[in-house]
C-alpha cells in the first residue's frame, strides 16, 4: 500500500479538525475526497504534506509502510509527495522558472539523478508548459505574483508535471476555475496517471470528477470519512447535497465510526 492512514486525529489552530480518519490508497489509484466546507479536507491535505501548524494527536500516517511523520516537508516532497495548493502563495522577486528549477533539482539530487542546468531545464519546462496551456512569459514572472486564480492553479499543475510525484494531493484545484481551465487542469492530471502513481483529489464539487474520474470517492464530514464508494457516490452527493449526510445514517462506512 502506498498510503495508509489509520485513526488519524489532528489539531490546527487549537481545534481538533480530523477526528479519526482511515484511508488507504494503492499505487495506480485515484481517490476523491469530497465534503462540505469545514469538514477537514484541507487539513487532511496539509497533514500529508507536513504543514508545521497541523499537529497529529493520534493515529498513524504511513507512506510505503514507513511513518511519514519522521520526515520534514521537504523530505516528503523529495520522496514524491506533491501538494497542489488551494491558495498558492506569491514569492516576489523570485522568478517562476528559477523556483521550479530549484525544486526539480532538489528532487533530482534526492533521487540520485544529475541536476539540470539552466538550458536543459528551460527545454523541459517549455515542453511541460504546453500541457497546461500557459504562456511562456509566466516562466520569467515572479512566482504566482499577479497571477489570476486560474493561472495560479495551472502553475500548480505545471509544477506537478515537472516534478512527476508518486503521490499527488490536489486541494480544491478546481475551485474558481471556468470550464476551459478546469479541462486544462484535468488534462494535466490525467497525463500523470500511471500504475506507479496515486492521487488524492480533494474537491467540493462533483464537476471536476467528470474530467478526472476517480476509482474511489470518500465523503468527509466533521473530520471523519462517513461514506466511501465508487464514482457514482459523487453524483449522488451532487443530487442530494451535503445536507443529506447529516440526516441519513451511514450506509457504507469503512471506518466503523461515528458511533
Amino acid at each position: 500500500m502506498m498510503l495508509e492512514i489509520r485513526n488519524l486525529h489532528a489539531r490546527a489552530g487549537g481545534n481538533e479538525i480530523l477526528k479519526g480518519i482511515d484511508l488507504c490508497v494503492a499505487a495506480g489509484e485515484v481517490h476523491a475526497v469530497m465534503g462540505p466546507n469545514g469538514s477537514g479536507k484541507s487539513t487532511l491535505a496539509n497533514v500529508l504534506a507536513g504543514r508545521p501548524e497541523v499537529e497529529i494527536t493520534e493515529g498513524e500516517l504511513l507512506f510505503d509502510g514507513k511513518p511519514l511523520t519522521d520526515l520534514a516537508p521537504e523530505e516528503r516532497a523529495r520522496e514524491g509527495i506533491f501538494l497542489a495548493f488551494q491558495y498558492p502563495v506569491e514569492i516576489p522577486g523570485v522568478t517562476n522558472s528559477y523556483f521550479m528549477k530549484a525544486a526539480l533539482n532538489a528532487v533530482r539530487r534526492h533521487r540520485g539523478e544529475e541536476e539540470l542546468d539552466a538550458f536543459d531545464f528551460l527545454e523541459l519546462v517549455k515542453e511541460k508548459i504546453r500541457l497546461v496551456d500557459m504562456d511562456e512569459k509566466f516562466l520569467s514572472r515572479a512566482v504566482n505574483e499577479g497571477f489570476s486564480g486560474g493561472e495560479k492553479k495551472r502553475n500548480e499543475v505545471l509544477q506537478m508535471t515537472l516534478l512527476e510525484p508518486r503521490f499527488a494531493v490536489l486541494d480544491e484545484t478546481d475551485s474558481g476555475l471556468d470550464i476551459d481551465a478546469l479541462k486544462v487542469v484535468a488534462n494535466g492530471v490525467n497525463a500523470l496517471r500511471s500504475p506507479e502513481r496515486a492521487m488524492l483529489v480533494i474537491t467540493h464539487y462533483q464537476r471536476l470528477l467528470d474530467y478526472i474520474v476517480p476509482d474511489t470517492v470518500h465523503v468527509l464530514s466533521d473530520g471523519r470519512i462517513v461514506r466511501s464508494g465508487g464514482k457514482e457516490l459523487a453524483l449522488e452527493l451532487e443530487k442530494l447535497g451535503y445536507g443529506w449526510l447529516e440526516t441519513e445514517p451511514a450506509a457504507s462506512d469503512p471506518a466503523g465510526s461515528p458511533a
Partner: protein
Amino acid sequence: MAESANPSIEELAQREYKYGFVTDIEEDRIPPGLNEDVVRLISRKKEEPAWLLEWRLKALHRFLEMLENDTEPTWAQVHYPKIDYQDITYYSSPKKKKQLQSLDEVDPELLRTYEKLGISLSEQKRLAGVAVDAVFDSVSVATTYKGELEKHGIVFGSFSDAVKEHPEIVEKYLGSVVPYSDNFFAALNSAVFSDGSFAFIPKGVRCPMELSTYFRINAAGTGQFERTLIVAEEGSYVSYLEGCTAPQRDENQLHAAVVELVALDDAEIKYSTVQNWYPGDENGVGGIYNFVTKRGACRGRRSKISWTQVETGSAITWKYPSCILQGDESVGEFYSVAMTNHRQQADTGTKMIHIGRDTKSTIISKGISAGRGQQSYRGLVRIGPKAHGARNYSQCDSLLLGDECGAHTFPYLEVRNATATVEHEATTSKIGEDQLFYCRQRGISEEDAISMIVNGFCKDVLRELPMEFAVEAQNLLGVSLEGSVG
C-alpha cells in the same frame, strides 16, 4: 535527515562570523585620548602640509565643543551606552619598516589576511578587472593596477598618497561636500582621520575597471576613521566598490568614516558598499559602531551619483548616503538592503536634496529584520524652491522574520516647488510561514527557501551591484540569516 549538499539549520546556526580572526602584526599605535597633541602627531606621522593640519585642528575644536555641549546625535532609533571619546586610540597602523616599492615588500602576514578574506592582492591572482586598494586599520597597504590606471590619467590609491602627490585636488575638494562642522561624527573624523581611498577620474575618461577598497579593522581598542574622496570630472565615469570586515571582539569599536563624492557636468559615479563589519554575537556583545557620513554632490549638469549598499554587519549602523542635486537634470539614486539579526540595530536611509531644475532621485530601500534586530529607514527628500520639475520616487519595504524584531520607517518630505512630483510607497511584510511551507513542499530546504525569499525581496537592489559583488552580497545575506529560524 541531514543532507549532503546543505548543512542542517542547527549546524548553520553554530557557524560563526567567518571573518572574525585577528592578524598578529606589529602595530604603530598612540596612547588613547583626544587632544591637539594627538591631532598634531597624526598629521606629523602622515607628513601632511600645514593647511591640512589647520583644517584638522579646526575640526577638533568644533568636535570638542560639540562634546562639551553634549550634542552627540540622539535622534536615531538606536541605543548604546555612552562612548568615552578619551578612551579611544585614534591612530594605529601596521608597522612599516620602509617605503614600499612593490607588493613583494608588503608584510606577508598582511597579504595572508587579505587572502583569507578572499581578496587577492598578488599581481598574478588579483581579481580580474578590479583594481583593489587594501586598507588595514585605516592605512592603505597596497593598491593594485596602479600603473594601468595612470595610463588613463586616473589617480587611485590611498588618501595619504593623494595628499602628497595631488595636494591641489585634495585641498580643492576636501570638506567641500561634508564640511568638518557638518555633524558630530564628521567633525571627529575630520580631526583624526588616518587614511582612506582617493580616486580622481579626469575629464572624459571612462574608468576601464571597477575600483575597489577593502577595509579591514584589526587592532583592538582603536577607533577607525577613514576618509574617502572621489572626484569625477566632466563626462567621466567610475564604478567604485567598498567591502568591510573586522575581527570578532567582545568590546565595541567605533568606526566613523566620511565619504565625499563630486560629480561635474555629465559625470557619473556609482558607489557600491558591502558592509560586513563584525556585528557582535547573538547576545549583542561586541561589534562595530558604524557611524558614517556619506554624501555626494552632483555639481554638474546631467551628473549622476548612485549609492548601492548592502549592510549586513555592525552592531549599530548610523548611515545616510545622500545626494545634493545641484546641477540641472542631475540624478541621484539610493539602493539599499539593510539586514539586522540577533541584537543588531540600524538606522539608515538617505537624503536627496533637489536644488537644480529637472533633477531626479530614486530611493529603493529594503530592510530585513530577524532575531531581535531593530531597524529604521530614515529618509529626507527636499525639493528646493528653484527645483522646477524635480521628481522623486521612494519605495521602502520591510521584511520581518520572527516576532521579536522591529522595522520602522521615518520619511521626511519637504517640497518647496509646486511643479515637483514626489511619490512614496512603503510596505511591511512578514516572511510568511505560508511562503516557507510552499517552498519546502516543493523539496527546497528551509534555509534555501529563506535565502531565496530574502534575495527575491532584495532583487531590485542587488541587480544594481556589479557582478562580482552581487554574488558576494547574496551569499552574505544567506550567512547573516543563519540561526534566525527554527
